[in-house]
């Protein structure tokens, strides 16, 4: 079934169409939610609420205004995820600069390894590394790198200053680089063992 046909049927609440939409787009959206919240259970909750919003507002989708359907869905999912993080009040989206400084002090400067070595780590490990970042770093990093927001937009979304957004992104990158370097070094240092 084509995308347009799916949308039309979903507007009229055709069960098959809604099921098809979920099966087609839920895996990518769950990966997005997982990157924001860090664990599968919360991610599935966010996916559930976000997808309900998507189906509820699918009649408003216009290709000319909103781009592709997946991009439109991702925007809704990001907003839903941020709302969840705010409302649950388990973790704050921002972190104090003081504690951030402490973390930064413990990070030694690392040199970048060649990117092809990072490729060895694979999708799952890199995805896991992002999910393991502190929540403030993780949120800013996801919004900047994957959603391609600017610092000003991130500051408006998260109610922080632009400078905080920049510093958290910088620290997120450093932390990720350090962890990836550690993983790569571990992989390099483990000798190949014959089966």
């Amino acid at each position, binding site marked *: 079934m084509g995308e347009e046909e799916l949308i039309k049927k979903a*507007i009229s609440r055709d069960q098959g169409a809604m099921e098809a939409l979920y099966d087609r787009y839920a*895996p*990518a959206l769950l990966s997005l939610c997982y990157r924001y919240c860090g664990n599968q259970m919360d991610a599935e909750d966010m996916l559930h609420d976000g997808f309900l919003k998507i189906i509820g507002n699918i009649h408003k989708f216009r290709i000319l205004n909103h781009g592709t359907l997946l991009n439109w869905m991702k925007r809704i999912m990001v*907003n839903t995820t*941020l709302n969840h993080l705010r409302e649950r009040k388990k973790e704050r989206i921002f972190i*104090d600069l003081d504690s951030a400084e402490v973390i930064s002090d413990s990070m030694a400067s690392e040199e970048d390894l060649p*990117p092809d070595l990072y490729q060895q780590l694979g999708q799952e490990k890199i*995805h896991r590394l992002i999910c393991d970042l502190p929540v403030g770093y993780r949120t800013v990093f996801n919004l900047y790198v994957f959603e391609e927001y600017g610092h000003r937009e991130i500051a*408006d979304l998260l109610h922080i200053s632009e400078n905080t957004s920049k510093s958290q992104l910088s620290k997120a990158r450093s932390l990720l680089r350090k962890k990836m370097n550690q993983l790569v070094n571990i992989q390099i240092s483990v000798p190949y063992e014959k089966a």
Partner: protein
Amino acid sequence: MKRHDQDTDEFFREILKDHTITPSEESRKAFLTDVAKLPIKKKRGIPPLALIVTIMFIAIVSVVIVLNNKPALQQLSEGIQQESATTGVVESGSAGNNKNIPTAPQAQGKSANEYVNPEKSGYLPTEATAGYFRKKATPTPKINNTTTSSKDSANKVSPAILTEEPQPVSGISGEAVTLSSDQSDQALAGRSVTSQTDKVIRDSVLIQPVVPDKSADISTPDSVTVFNPAKSISAEAAPPRLPEAGTAAEEKQRRNQYDYKNAPPDKGNLRIGISYTPEWIFNTIEKTNFSNNFGADLTFRAGQYSIRTGAGLSISKGTNELTVSYNDFLGSYNKLDSMDFSWSDPAHNYIPTYYMSRMNVWDSLLKLDYPKVVKRYTYLQIPLIFGYDFMRIGRWSLGVRVGPLLSVLLQTKQLSDDYNPVNKKVVSINNLPPEQINLNWQVLAGINANFNIRSRLNIEIEPFVKYYFNSVYEKPETGFKPWSAGIRTAISFDL
């Protein structure tokens, strides 16, 4: 905002662009169950607020139309209230069958001076009875079988025709003439008087039937003429002549007095006023916000166009949420700082002296608290509203108003108390909602209804909607700008 992307960013985007995680079967089933309960979205109807504004607009226009017809209605009622010396005019042969035409009092048994008060009798002058009226101010043709006691009724036409008091009116020859019921029957012979053919003669001020000459052709409606009692009066005593009803040119002239297009162009004038505007702001962090706006306006008017500016204060309340990171207070203990020993001779012993200090203990677990702080924001509003009045009827005028407004934050005052941690140890306090920005622009569109109470005093009612280009009251997740609606009420004075 320039993005300074790094290679690592590109690397992450590439490696994870098609990363997927399959949802669990439980979550899939839960979603499909919940999504089946979603209602089908109907086509977006008219928002409730737009409906309210539309209803108000229709109500204002209806009031304007009713007031527009008020002069005509007043004239009609005046005409009805005027006295007529008619008797038995409306009586028709089939009066008993036609209940819509009330029967005038019978002439018989009544003096010729007696007139029929249409208001009391419910009789209205109609086309059916127009044959009894003469238009030309010519001597009354000899009337055979005139009524009795005409000589006794030397009533003269008085200027009171135009007053509300019914007055007896003399005929052309200075004599009152009345019809007997038999004569009225004869006059009406051949004519069917029905309610369907009746037509109210608007400008009839007086009902004065006269018996037509027998030679006069009254059998057809074409010969019906209207009696204008004003013409029968001598020139000196003649009251001001009313424009004759039904004349197209006169009617047009009367209408033109109230028509913007044909009215003489107004000279520009200034108008000052004060206003109060309750305003409801939607699509904000606090869902809906209410603000009170007070203003002083200066309007320059030139014909149908106007420009309004001024200054005003906008006062609203807002709630800020703080995030307080703290450690719980667990208790306190006395900490021994130092000891001192001194020899006591009598006791032959050292007596210790302990120096203590009170130490508080807080939990190491970081907790969060979310107190709310209520603040009052005062803005200075400077409007520049362009207006065009497209309708003016009598004292009412109706027009559209469009223009920008600038709001400048003057003062922020905290109304609630500061956060009191008591004995908790505060680690940090952060402000969750965005800070209030100092400047924002809005654009307003509304409909203005103006009523001129007295010569220079006016009242205005102006429902409007406003769109905020850049406001503190934003709901970031929706991505939409806030908007508001309100009703401006003002009293103004023409300089």
